[in-house]
């Protein structure tokens, strides 16, 4: 009869029945009932309700029953912590049982009951068991210390169990020593600072002695512990190595790997000139090779570790290439790892053999494997220069198979070969181009596009090829889009005449229609480069690329050293430091190789390391510009932007809000503009030419402006920067509205159509009031004049400098950003305030906000000045004569609602003709500009 019958009771009221059976007087019945309970527990039923009844069965002399009850306890004690105390007495008693099996069972189970409350009751029994005469009990008690430490570390320390555990390292029984070592290592691992395993030559010696006598598992514990020791000199390292080497002959693969770990680590301390060093190298190879006959999972672990060892000490396995040849029935994960190691071992000496194998693999049926094999051929070409030609011809053979994924992989690796050996194998490009249509994977498409772009000058129909990719631009993956962008720019730089349209198309696709910031940024970078300085663009985009390194996938040396310390563990399988996959800081101690190596703190796995940025990008510049330009694009061209002027400005311009509070309900004026770069000096240098004056245009009802000043048009956007479109312009003011007068000149050779304009957000809410209307296409050398009405209700954003306005206009969807250098803005018609209000406001604005200026060489009298200013919407509120000076009190309001109050002091007859200006405003930062406006107006 079998135990499976216990699984069959599924009747209702089962628990109740079991309860009755558990309390039965008959031993046999009791035992049956406990088995049923355990069976239920096994299939996942909750039988915790039977806790007291099961615990009652604990006191029995039947070992099997006792084991079952203990098993039950381990499972449910945590959910019934109060009742678990009931079990304590039995544990205490069982720990004194004459039968060591029962003593050990009790001490083993005790530690598995993770209930804080009862742990302290277990200290005494544990103490006894640690000193038990039977080694079976002692070895179990040693592990129990580690269990207890996991539950309550403080208690274990207070009770002095750690010292007892350390004493057990000198136990006469090797099993006990092994378990004590394991327990101590475990505790030390979770408490790195505890310095529990202060290994010294004496204790090391004991461990090495125990190593020869304990079980295979014990040997692993000891070897893993030894690996943490730092020998004081090379002599000691050598003697430990000598005593560890015999373990390489153990049948258990895990023992072998742990021994390899110790040897690899201590070898670091040995001088390479030492005979022993060479001997050791020779001794390591055969056991590593033998690991490949182990079970597949162990082979996998071994291969992952060999991968590390080969990188650290290639000399060990350099002659063993053949054992890594793939067999037909290897599991796929073994095949892939073998392939990787084959490439690492590839050298001039064995390359012929390797290539023959790889070619064989490349024609198998397993897609993943085939791909990796093809890739491997490429890596061989890069690694072993002499073989490059052979590899390329092998790849070409494979391309001829027309097997889709083989072709794609081949193209991906050929790209790398081109990068490693430029100007050598370009003859194959024609063959590659034949397969263009079959490429459907992003990586292959990107590689092909790169090749076409890179060798555009040698491919007659490069533009056609690239254009064909451009059609479905938005369906491509980012990788392909980026590559296409770069390739077309390269093409343009190489064949500028025929490909202008193509490059414009791709730039606009990248910058306007894409949500991908990388793509947009790269698009803008190219755009700016091309528009500002084509020569620089050429230097950047067509710069000579650094050759790719021999092996791109080598593990970074500090990480490699750390991983060597973790041979055989999960870290060595993942090729990641434990900190990357073990929860929290607990249990994570950075390990490093002894001497000669740098410490491996903060080693980063290569997967997480950032991939190299493409050359020519300057990440610190791009984001800022990109944002600005991005904003620029957000402005809608159609209806005027109706931003929430005051609401936004109150957030963005705290000072403005203050003023708004004082002089509510006012009107719009406008301000103007200085571009970020070139225009600023222009402002300073020639304030007259492009002064503020054009702003203060008082039209006050009269048809066209008389006195209103209009600055002459200045060239805002030179043709060079905008693919032949020159834009000059100025701001004018007519009947209370502001316009931007533009003159567009086509200096390119082609007809231009489809013009558009966009404004960036600015301090004055300036935005186009209507779309830019250029009705006819602009033929070469033709010029057109347009007046673009502006509104002041666009969204307001404080710019730095305040009068910074950025505008983009151009053909189709590619705006060329520029900044008009003329000043727009000005006071608005509603800028007049009454005297009382003026006085109140003047007083209300704190004196710190007052700014004093002098305007020299202004021969005007008060009358003339007043009227001149009024034509620019600066209104005189009052006029007084104080001590022979004419005082003009004036007000103006900017389009964004900022009020400015001014006191103008004119001294008639003053030979220097100096006029003093005091400005008061809640937003003092505008004062400077208002002053400049005054100056411009008054001097004109």
């Amino acid at each position, binding site marked *: 009869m079998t135990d499976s019958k216990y699984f069959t009771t599924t009747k209702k009221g089962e628990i109740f029945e079991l309860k009755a059976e558990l309390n039965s007087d008959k031993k046999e019945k009791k035992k049956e009932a406990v088995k049923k309970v355990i069976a239920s527990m096994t299939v996942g039923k909750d039988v915790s309700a039977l806790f007291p009844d099961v615990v009652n069965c604990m006191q029995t002399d039947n070992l099997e029953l006792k084991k079952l009850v203990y098993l039950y306890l381990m499972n449910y004690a945590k959910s019934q912590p109060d009742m678990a105390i009931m079990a304590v007495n039995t544990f205490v008693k069982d720990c004194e049982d004459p039968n060591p099996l029962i003593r050990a069972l009790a001490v083993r189970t005790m530690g*598995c009951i993770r209930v804080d409350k009862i742990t302290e009751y277990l200290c005494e029994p544990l103490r006894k068991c640690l000193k038990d005469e039977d080694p*079976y009990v002692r070895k179990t008690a040693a592990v129990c210390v580690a269990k207890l430490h996991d539950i309550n570390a403080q208690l274990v320390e207070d009770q002095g169990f750690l010292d007892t555990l350390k004493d057990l390292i000198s136990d006469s029984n090797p099993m006990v020593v092994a378990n004590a070592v394991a327990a101590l290592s475990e505790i030390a691992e979770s408490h790195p600072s505890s310095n529990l395993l202060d290994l010294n030559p004496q204790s090391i010696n004991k461990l090495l002695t125990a190593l020869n006598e304990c079980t295979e598992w014990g040997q692993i514990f000891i070897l893993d512990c030894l690996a943490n020791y730092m020998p004081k000199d090379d002599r000691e390292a050598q003697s430990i190595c000598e005593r560890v080497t015999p373990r390489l002959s153990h049948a258990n693969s895990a023992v072998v790997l742990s021994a390899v770990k110790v040897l690899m680590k201590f070898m670091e301390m040995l001088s390479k000139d030492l005979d022993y060093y060479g001997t050791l190298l020779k001794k390591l190879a055969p056991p590593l090779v033998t690991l490949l*006959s182990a079970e597949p999972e162990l082979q996998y672990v071994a291969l992952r570790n060999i991968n590390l060892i080969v990188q650290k000490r290639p000399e060990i396995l350099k002659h063993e290439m053949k054992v890594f040849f793939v067999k037909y029935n290897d599991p796929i994960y073994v095949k892939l790892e073998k392939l990787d190691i084959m490439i690492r071992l590839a050298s001039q000496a064995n390359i012929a053999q390797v290539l023959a194998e790889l070619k*064989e693999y490349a024609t198998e049926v397993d897609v993943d494997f085939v791909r990796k094999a093809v890739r491997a051929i490429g890596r061989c070409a890069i690694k072993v220069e002499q073989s490059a030609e052979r590899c390329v011809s092998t790849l070409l053979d494979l391309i001829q198979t027309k097997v889709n994924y083989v072709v794609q992989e081949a193209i991906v690796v050929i790209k790398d070969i081109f990068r490693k050996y430029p100007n050598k194998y370009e003859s194959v490009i024609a063959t590659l181009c034949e397969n263009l249509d079959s490429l459907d994977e992003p990586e292959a498409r990107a590689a092909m596009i790169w090749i076409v772009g890179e060798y555009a000058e040698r491919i007659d129909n490069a533009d056609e090829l690239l254009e064909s990719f451009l059609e479905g631009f938005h369906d491509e993956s980012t990788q392909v889009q980026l590559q296409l962008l770069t390739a077309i720019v390269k093409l343009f730089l190489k064949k500028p005449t025929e490909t202008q349209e193509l490059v414009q198309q791709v730039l606009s696709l990248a910058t306007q229609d894409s949500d991908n910031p990388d793509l947009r940024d790269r698009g803008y970078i190219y755009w700016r480069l091309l528009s500002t300085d084509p020569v620089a663009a050429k230097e950047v985009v067509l710069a000579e690329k650094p050759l790719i390194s021999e092996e791109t996938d080598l593990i970074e040396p500090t990480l490699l050293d750390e991983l060597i310390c973790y041979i055989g563990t999960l870290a060595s399988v993942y090729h990641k430091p434990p900190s990357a996959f073990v929860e929290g800081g607990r249990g994570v101690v950075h390990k490093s190789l002894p001497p000669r190596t740098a410490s491996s703190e903060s080693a980063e796995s290569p997967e997480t390391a950032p991939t190299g940025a493409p050359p020519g990008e300057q990440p610190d510049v791009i984001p800022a510009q990109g944002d600005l330009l991005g904003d620029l694009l957000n402005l809608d061209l159609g209806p005027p932007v109706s931003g929430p002027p005051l609401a936004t400005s109150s957030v963005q311009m705290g000072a403005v809000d203050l003023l708004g509070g004082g002089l509510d309900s006012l009107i719009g004026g406008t301000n103007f503009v200085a571009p970020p770069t070139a225009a600023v000096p222009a402002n300073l240098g020639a304030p007259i030419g492009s002064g503020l004056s054009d702003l203060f245009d008082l039209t006050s009802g009269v048809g066209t402006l008389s006195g209103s000043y209009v600055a002459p048009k200045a060239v805002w956007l030179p043709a060079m920067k905008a693919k032949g479109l020159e834009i000059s312009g100025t701001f004018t003011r007519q009947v209370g509205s502001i316009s931007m007068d533009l003159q567009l000149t086509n200096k390119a050779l082609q007809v231009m159509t489809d013009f558009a304009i966009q404004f960036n957000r600015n301090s004055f809410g300036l935005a186009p009031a209507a779309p830019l209307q250029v009705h006819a296409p602009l033929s070469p050398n033709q010029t057109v004049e347009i007046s673009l009405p502006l509104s002041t209700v666009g969204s307001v954003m404080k710019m730095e400098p305040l009068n910074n306005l950025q505008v983009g206009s151009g053909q189709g969807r590619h705006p060329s950003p520029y900044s008009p250098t003329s000043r727009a803005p000005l006071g608005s018609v509603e800028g007049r305030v009454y005297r009382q209000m003026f006085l109140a406001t003047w007083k209300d604005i704190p004196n710190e906000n007052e700014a004093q200026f002098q305007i020299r060489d202004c021969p005007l009298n008060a009358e003339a000045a007043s009227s001149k200013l009024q034509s620019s919407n600066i209104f005189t509120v009052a006029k007084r004569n104080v001590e022979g000076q004419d005082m003009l009190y004036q007000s103006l309001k900017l389009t964004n609602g900022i009020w400015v109050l001014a006191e103008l002091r004119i001294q008639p007859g003053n030979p220097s003709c100096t006029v003093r200006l005091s400005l008061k405003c809640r937003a003092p930062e505008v004062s400077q500009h208002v002053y400049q406006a005054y100056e411009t107006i008054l001097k004109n």
Partner: protein
Amino acid sequence: MSASAVFILDVKGKPLISRNYKGDVAMSKIEHFMPLLVQREEEGALAPLLSHGQVHFLWIKHSNLYCIHPTWCPWRWVWGLSAMVAAQAKRGWAEDRSCTAHLCGLGWGQGQVEMRVVARDRVEVRGLYSIYFAINGTFSLTLLPLVVATTSKNANASLVYSFLYKTIEVFCEYFKELEEESIRDNFVIVYELLDELMDFGFPQTTDSKILQEYITQQSNKLETGKSRVPPTVTNAVSWRSEGIKYKKNEVFIDVIESVNLLVNANGSVLLSEIVGTIKLKVFLSGMPELRLGLNDRVLFELTGRSKNKSVELEDVKFHQCVRLSRFDNDRTISFIPPDGDFELMSYRLSTQVKPLIWIESVIEKFSHSRVEIMVKAKGQFKKQSVANGVEISVPVPSDADSPRFKTSVGSAKYVPEKNVVIWSIKSFPGGKEYLMRAHFGLPSVEKEEVEGRPPIGVKFEIPYFTVSGIQVRYMKIIEKSGYQALPWVRYITQSGDYQLRTS
């Protein structure tokens, strides 16, 4: 350091039995395992180590997995199937229901398969290899449990895998076979064993012979209260109990050499390797000290003997009973053996030897009409020796039909479920050369999928002969009672992984 918990799962990934050793990983995490496995399998990225968040699953499948496609359907395929079955079962599949699933990216090719779950652990699969050709016959797979260990730390992975294999070995010795039924039938003892095999993630006693001394299936025995820990458990000699008695003291020594061979399609040998094992069957009383002498070249050099007739062992692995440090010092193989059968040592040589059975083959495929196969086999070993039970399996396309054979000796048989022709020759003397011709028809409509090019495999056994020339020079048996014991030695060479690629 090691496993937090060990699970034995059934076909569907449901735990049959489990043991939580450390309590740092929630037992419910195992629910993530099977979906993860299925997902990875679909991605073609299956590995023996899977991770879900901070939990790492180290898993093995029980290697006795029976499948009637042992060489032809790589392991991955079987897993693909079982994973699919598991996935289907999760969707509420009742037994004895059929469904069609698409097999893709699996090693065997692509196509439709029809599966029927005929029992909890058995699934019947019928493959429609493509739209046109149904695979002949139905085959069934027995899906056996998986053993999984979990951990949340940087565990020693090789230790965990070794331990899992050891665990399976112990279960197999206890229950003959490890499968769902045997686990259910013996759950009490499985729990007991799990308790004894590992403690807090540290493997303890894993020697099934010793375990059987105090954990027995006849639990009644224990009730007498006599049960004690055998001192062996903690002895330095943890593999042999004291007080063993035999009337006749004998040791049987089997020296078995397997030849692994890999030959590429144009006939050059890529890899030729001999893996030898020395197995002992020990019927000796008391605690005997044994010493085995081999014609080991290093030993001969050490002792200044002539190197003739000696063998250079490239890598030697010993059973834990052998004193490794002593071997390291003076190449002496000395040990106290366990009782009964065990593998004393294994060794590896990569010295190039002439392939024992050489195959030349011409496989000509005339698309849409036929396949012509010609295979020539040559015995390249001593004339006095005879290879027994030679089986040469030659791959044929999966859509081949109407086989015809002609052999100069032995018989040929078409095994459609493996897509091979097996040519069997009972006795194949050295120096002889035989020929087999086969002819198959091919359907006029070709299937689309590309097939792999499996190698030709050869199986054979040559008794009284070791290809390496290794010899047992002596076996000294010393026991304090001073009895006389007889060692018996047998030699045999057999095929290991013997593959010749076809073009």
